[in-house]
């Protein structure tokens, strides 16, 4: 299958993250699955006029297109013209190109939370009037209409994340190449379920602190960051702590909170990214699927039962009290 990759209004970070794919490297990985780039703006040889001719050939139906990957949000400004982002050399807005090329592609993949839902460029006053390819924030209907299906019969596949984990992108492409990607493989926001059916909370090394609501009060402390530091790992989808990033990393492993970057509208949480909003001193926001009354009851009970070790370590920047050793019975 061939891939045309376009960089719309984003930071290029999902491509840069993609290059971090390992075992094997991204070139061998895609090559081995029969995937090749028709063109990628950071990686291909072709530049300038030949690229314009290739894009025109796709539009004219002379060049088949299997997978259209779009990275970055789609800008509509100023005043609906899309001219805040002209695709260089073409005089046409990226908005126009995305609409025109999407209908030619067998599959359309939105790579990263900018492309899926609008993402960071739509923060604040949304200066460029940025939206996603098939969503505007959490609302279906973006640069492409809500009911859009590519010629392969799929809605836009939303590989959300800011940035995307390299495997989220490569596994999606490999599933497409294997013919294993179906509408049922996507969740309610169009995200591939192979990573979106997990929560960032799963395998978070702070889980024992979470169990007792033993909380960090400042970034770099070891405790759970849900109560004070804005962590929404118990609600955010992603297998970040199961799969890990760049070797053994994840946001919570590095001592800062999950900010829900795989979700629509994560860029505007309504409060500081590293603080938890509270109502009458009680944090707002519950773990996914947890009844509020039970959560409150269990939280107050477990907090009262916090072991000394966990309580002390929660506000330390490294393990200060180790687990008690038990002697074997014999």
């Amino acid at each position, binding site marked *: 299958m061939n891939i045309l990759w376009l960089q719309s209004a984003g930071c290029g970070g999902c491509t840069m993250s993609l290059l971090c794919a390992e075992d094997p*490297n991204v070139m061998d990985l895609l090559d081995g699955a029969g995937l090749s780039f028709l063109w990628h703006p950071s990686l291909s040889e072709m530049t300038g006029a030949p690229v314009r001719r290739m894009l025109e050939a796709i539009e004219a139906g002379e060049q088949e297109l299997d997978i259209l990957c779009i990275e970055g949000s789609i800008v509509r400004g100023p005043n609906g013209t899309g001219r805040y982002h002209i*695709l260089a050399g073409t005089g046409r807005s990226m908005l126009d190109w995305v609409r025109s090329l999407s209908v030619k592609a067998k599959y359309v993949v939105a790579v990263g939370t900018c492309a899926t839902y609008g993402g960071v460029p739509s923060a604040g006053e949304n200066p460029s009037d940025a939206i996603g390819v098939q969503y505007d924030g959490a609302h279906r209907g973006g640069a492409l209409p809500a009911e859009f299906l590519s010629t392969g019969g799929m809605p836009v596949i939303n590989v959300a994340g800011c940035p995307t984990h390299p495997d989220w992108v490569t596994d999606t492409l490999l599933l497409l190449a294997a013919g294993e990607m179906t509408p049922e493989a996507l969740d309610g926001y169009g995200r591939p379920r192979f990573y979106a059916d997990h929560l960032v909370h799963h395998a978070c090394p702070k889980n024992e602190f979470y169990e007792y609501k033993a909380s960090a009060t400042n970034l770099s402390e070891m405790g759970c960051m849900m109560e004070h530091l804005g962590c929404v790992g118990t609600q955010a989808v992603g297998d970040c702590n199961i799969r890990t990033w760049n070797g053994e*990393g994840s946001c919570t492993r590095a001592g800062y909170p999950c900010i829900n970057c795989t979700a629509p509208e994560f860029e505007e949480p309504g409060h500081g990214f590293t603080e938890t909003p509270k109502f009458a001193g009680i944090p707002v926001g519950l773990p996914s699927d947890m009844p509020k009354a039970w959560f409150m009851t269990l939280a107050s009970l477990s907090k009262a039962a916090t072991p000394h070790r966990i309580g002390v370590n929660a506000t330390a920047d*490294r393990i200060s009290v180790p687990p008690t050793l038990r002697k074997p019975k014999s």
Partner: protein
Amino acid sequence: MSETQLLVGPFNRVEGDLEIRLDVADGRVSSAYVNSPLFRGFERMLLGKGPRDALTITPRICGICSISQSAAAARALADAAGVMPPPDGARVAALLHAVENVSDHLVHFNLFFMPDFARLGYQGRAWHDQVVRRFTALEGSALRQATEARAQLLHIVGMLGGKWPHTLAIQPGGVTRAPTARDKVRIGASLRAFRRYLEDTVFGAGVEEFAALSSEEAFLNWDRGDAGLFTTVARDLGLADYGCGQGRYLSFGAYPTNDGPVFASGQWDNGVLSPLDLSGMVEDHSHAWVLGEGAHPERGETLPDEDMREHAYSWCKAPRLNGQVFETGALARQVVVGHPLARDLARRGGVVGRVGGRLLELALTQIEMERLLADIHPEARFMDRVELPREGEGVGLVEAARGALGHWIRIEGGVISSYQIVAPTTWNFSPRDAGGVAGPVEAALVGAAVQKGEDTPLSVQHIVRSFDPCMVCTVH
């Protein structure tokens, strides 16, 4: 005299969107106009937000200079609060930042710059077959090796920073993860593996031997590793005379530690080095689709011109220092530091100078990363609590891979009332100023050869890519 115009775009293997308009006369570029065709408006997004949100939002300006943006934001907030991070926290932040810059140099050389020499247009040159094997876009063996070496080097950011890009680990009070003695030995192992890659593959010799080169002639005669393949190409094509610079270089000082930056700050004007002084800095709006008068970034504003007025041609403002154009980047940094090879390369300051400056810095930074790691004490403090003022101003100056990056913040009533960012490529790819003076790349392109029938001239591609532009940072 035959005159034509060429429009080059989409200009790929650069970070972000770039379009270049060329006037061509008698087979040479007579003038060039550089357009950064994407406006997102990060400076406006930040208005009214809590100052700490800058740490989450500004790294997302750029997925290749993400830690640079993060470090600049953290420094600006620390400056507003009047604090310095604890020394070990500053060293971890410096190490994270150095890893990113080295990764960027590696991507530039292997994935962005060298593949142009594998083009059919160079078939028949003595070196072409070897370049095709090593550097064909998406296929060459050097690209695969570089990608793997980089991915492994970035494990250091995974461990200390959680992920790359877009870490939140660098804070005004230090860093969010205190490395243990075990972390330190693992990082040491990653650095040793990277040294081995540099020595076996890029230099074909010890990094110290390469870093000891002291003249352009010695560099051009270097014949080992992929660096040697580049110099072979460069000698044959005469690349040293492609895209010469104007001899004015700027560095904000790389990797601030509490003992000062690892690579010093300063400004260089054709042989004269002086201390960095940004009081005479102005961002000119005359040829940018930005409204209002140009100003120093402390007082600057970013109001996009929705009508995209006729005589302007880019979303990029034109930064000038004391009314003059400055170039920034790896070569500039090492010229300011005073490295003899960089100083000699800067006499012409063309394609060879910029690429040579980056290779030199790969070697120098490997040595500095090892030194930074050795000075990290796992028992030390890595983070202090920082209270940000409700009213105040701060500036964060750092060196991204591509050069001088500054963040200027003003806080009023506890929220951001002004945030101005000037990125390295804002300097290098600036449009003309009110005096009609061209930006660095526009000037460097004048005289570039255009062969008959070329609609996307190769010489132009070499010159533009030698700057390693980051267009997403440029306008932000």
